């Protein structure tokens, strides 16, 4: 990797000041599980690396009156071992434990999970976030079995484990820069890129993701993940659901698909379909079918339509059982 300056601030204001002064040339280091490999492959070549692990206020997983606060540098291991997360936010717990590498859980952070770059193998081999060659995406005519079924012009899939669950639960993400803070809905944080200047998330130059706040769980929730192997592997499809129930029937629902498009897919159609229904096998199956309406599979990833459907069905049935 190229040489870089290393900064180790102790406070958020020091960190944002550092980022403000170095603009696009700085990268934030938390767990480093993605950043370091990107740097070793020369896909990112920051002049400055700002370590935020020593900023105390960015850590921790705690329940408060406003809901669950997850600090940006809270590790997946902290999330996996949190009793509150396990009992009240099973959708998050399942998303976290789906990451089966102890090494990644020990090092990887919640903020990093949201801010990581796509795993698309064209991107990782140097073809950019849109996988372009000679003005054309390599994905539709190439090896696309792991790519999105809700894509174009970006065909990569959002790699975030937490994203779908956070969106289903109505979480908000706080971002800070030298001028102050802003808060966005988790759903709005993910943005499908249209060109090479954006990267799939609403993180502006000079900003640090500081925390995630999940409102008190207003409904039963679950995540179901399908991947090729049990060892550390990226999901082929996931579904996170959150249901507010009333008298055994769904009052309102959120159904969010993961790893099927450049952003998590919040399915209004599935939510609409579920409203007023009780959850059984047939309803769950039909909700799955509704969730994948509008999918545009590529030459090798038609199977992901089926997987997304099944993930929705099984997530709903898990909620039904809970």
């Amino acid at each position, binding site marked *: *990797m*190229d*040489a870089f300056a290393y900064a180790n601030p102790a406070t958020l204001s020091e960190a944002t000041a550092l980022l403000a002064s170095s603009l696009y040339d700085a990268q934030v280091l938390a767990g480093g599980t993605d950043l370091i490999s990107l740097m070793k492959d*020369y896909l990112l070549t920051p002049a400055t690396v700002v370590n935020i692990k020593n900023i105390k206020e960015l850590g921790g997983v705690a329940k408060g009156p406003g809901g669950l606060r997850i600090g940006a540098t809270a590790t997946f291991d902290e999330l996996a071992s949190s009793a509150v997360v396990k009992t009240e936010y099973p959708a998050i717990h399942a998303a976290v434990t789906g990451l*089966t590498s102890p090494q990644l859980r020990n090092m990887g952070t919640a903020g990093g999970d949201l801010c990581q770059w796509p*795993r698309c*193998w*064209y991107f*990782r*081999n140097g073809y950019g976030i849109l996988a372009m*060659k000679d003005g054309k995406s*390599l994905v539709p*005519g*190439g*090896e696309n*079995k*792991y790519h999105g079924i809700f894509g174009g012009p970006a065909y990569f899939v959002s790699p975030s484990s937490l994203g779908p669950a956070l969106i289903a639960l109505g979480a908000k993400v706080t971002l800070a820069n030298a001028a102050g803070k802003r808060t966005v809905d988790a759903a709005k944080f993910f943005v499908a890129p249209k060109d090479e200047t954006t990267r799939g998330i609403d993180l502006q130059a000079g900003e640090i993701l500081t925390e995630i706040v999940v409102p008190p769980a207003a409904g039963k929730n679950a995540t179901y993940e*399908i991947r*090729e*192997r*049990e*060892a*550390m*592997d*990226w999901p*082929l499809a996931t579904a996170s659901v959150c249901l507010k129930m009333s008298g055994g029937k769904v009052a309102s629902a959120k159904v969010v698909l993961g790893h099927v498009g450049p952003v998590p897919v919040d399915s209004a159609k599935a939510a609409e379909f579920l409203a007023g229904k009780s959850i059984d096998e047939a309803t769950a199956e039909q909700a799955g079918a509704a969730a994948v309406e509008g999918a545009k599979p590529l030459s*090798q*990833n*038609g*199977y992901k339509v*089926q*997987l997304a459907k*099944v993930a929705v069905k099984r997530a709903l049935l898990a909620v039904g059982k809970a």
Partner: protein
Amino acid sequence: MPDYSWPPMEKRKVIGKRISRLDGMVKSTGAAKYNSDINPPGLLFGVLLTSPHGHARIKSIDTSEAERLPGVTAVRVILGAGKEIQWQGQEIASLAAVTEDIARDAARKIKVDYEILEHFVDEEDLAKAGSRAKPAGEVTTGDPDKAFQEADAISQGYYAIPVITHCCLEPHGQTVRWRGERVDYWPSTQNVSALGAELARSIKVPVTQVHTDMQYMGGGFGSKFPADLWGTECAELSKASGGRPVKMFLDRQQELLMAGNRPSVFGEIKVGAKKDGSLTVWQSKTWASGGLGGGNLNADQMPYVYRNVPNRRINHTAVSINAGSARAWRAPNNQQLSYITCCALDDLAAKLGMDSLDFFIKNTSLSPRGEVYKYQLEKGAEIAEWKKLWKPRGTSNGPIKRGLGIGVNMWGGLGHDSKCRAIINPDGSVEVQIGTQDLGVGTRTIVPQVAAETLGLPMPAIKFSMGSNAYPPSGASGGSTTVGGVTASTRKATVNALNKLFEVVAPSLGVPADQLEAVDRKIQVKGNPAKSLSWQAACAKLGVNRIEEMGENVGRTAPREGLISQGAAGIQIADVSVDIETGKVKLNRLIAVQDCGLIVNPKLAESQIFGACIMSTCGALYEERVMDQQIGKTLNADMEFYKLSGINDIGEIIVHLDLRPEMDKRGVIGLGEPPAIGGIAAIANAVANAVGVRVHMVPLTPNRVLEALARRNA
């Protein structure tokens, strides 16, 4: 001639015992130093600049900026202007620098201007291969057309198995220090004895100057026989850097691109049988690629194991693609042959409406070792509870379908040429020296076992020295030849040394030397422990002399002596569950029944089979090289999307070693390869049995399983 034969089974005290790997602890604690851990003082880091393109010509190369970078000690151009590049990863330049970072930065400062040429990397698409496809010519036995006319059932299918790589945990590479007239060579190799000579030739020094040392290695699987271009480069960089040692190991991407692979095979197979299940005819059209060199398959070995089928028509085409070349991959060709054969036969059994176990057993007469396979299939079926659990294809209930499948293997495994020196010292200490390596087979353990057995000593009394070309030469570890080779040479050397000791001791015990035996740390008159000398006292009689005796195994003539032989057979039965909603395959059990003659250490033998079965789960369920025809590059030259099994993906592995006395009498036979052959076929057949339809290509990932199910339902 001295009697070298193995002691009878019932008399063995060390051989045949479940002794744990002597180097297990140092390996698992990290105390064992692999050659990639060797860091001599003044160490430099060497790196290779490799081609980012699949097919190109070098228009110009400029190394000046790299040479100017402070810390760079030497830069060498391997392929200069005008040279053609044939695969991504081909070596273009090498350099050495004082740190790894400087070396990598310097490699990026070498400016290469390429003319991009047209590439071809998709060998499955045979129609587009053009002149890159080289047919081997048709082989015909009997009258296949007539046999198809007379067959009661015919099955036709398409079967495919992709290119996979070796994925050695310790990548290929070496450290070399070339100072004056001495070259110190620390490679990661399967070939300790001969590798130094190869390096010596390439750098033009007498072999006497090259000192090879390797105590531990992190996997080879057939890919670490040669010194390789990077060995030569490493030595030349050391010389050009004033004799400072240079360490050059491939990085993970290079390891997957350059260090060998197992060729793919694609096949259209047609087979026919009589109503009673007798296989009468085999026809195959196969094509394959192992990179630029095409892909030989030994296709005339099909149908694998069931080779004596009376009617055959075989066509094979090797396809050259722009990818790194194949290397031997744990049982070269055999995995593919077993996979293609067993899948086609399993489909034929289903077509006949026959239990595939019965079909595989019925046709064992088509194998020269049919009786052994029959026994093993029955034994495996008993362990698997086949008759209780097996159901006809696709009749398992519920969304989770269970299935059983069979794969078979065969191998030679004759011990290679090996020389051993056994030394008995007057103080009673014993050293055994062989220029061999422990590829993972347990050489470091089984050689002392044989020596201890012969000399009537406990294993800790034996010092075993290996891993250096200063010791008597022994063959490369390939083809499952090591255990046969080193046990035979060790047995002979230690018998010879012991006979010398008997001659020295005989007068003291008042009997001729041939009336003595070594038992329980004593030299005694045969069958008479009362008339004995302790090992120490016996050795003390050597005075100032020591005994040094050689033992030699000559592979070609060894079977006649009875210590070793060849011809291993085995079968695997897989038990899987398939979630037909997600297409995800879960391996419940993989049962391996294997013969390999006399088993020196059943624990290590089982360990070999465990490893082979784990590799089979990778190849069956996860592992494949993915190349993109648009750009001519490998997309998954990493350990993220080049997927291997993790601990929770493996399932239960059950090993049954065929230890029957008639097997033991055959002597030692190599085991490394055979159990790595049939597992992929067994798992593929189990999945077909579970879901009721053939999934055409391994690995059996959800996309392929779901596509096969959709085809069935259409």
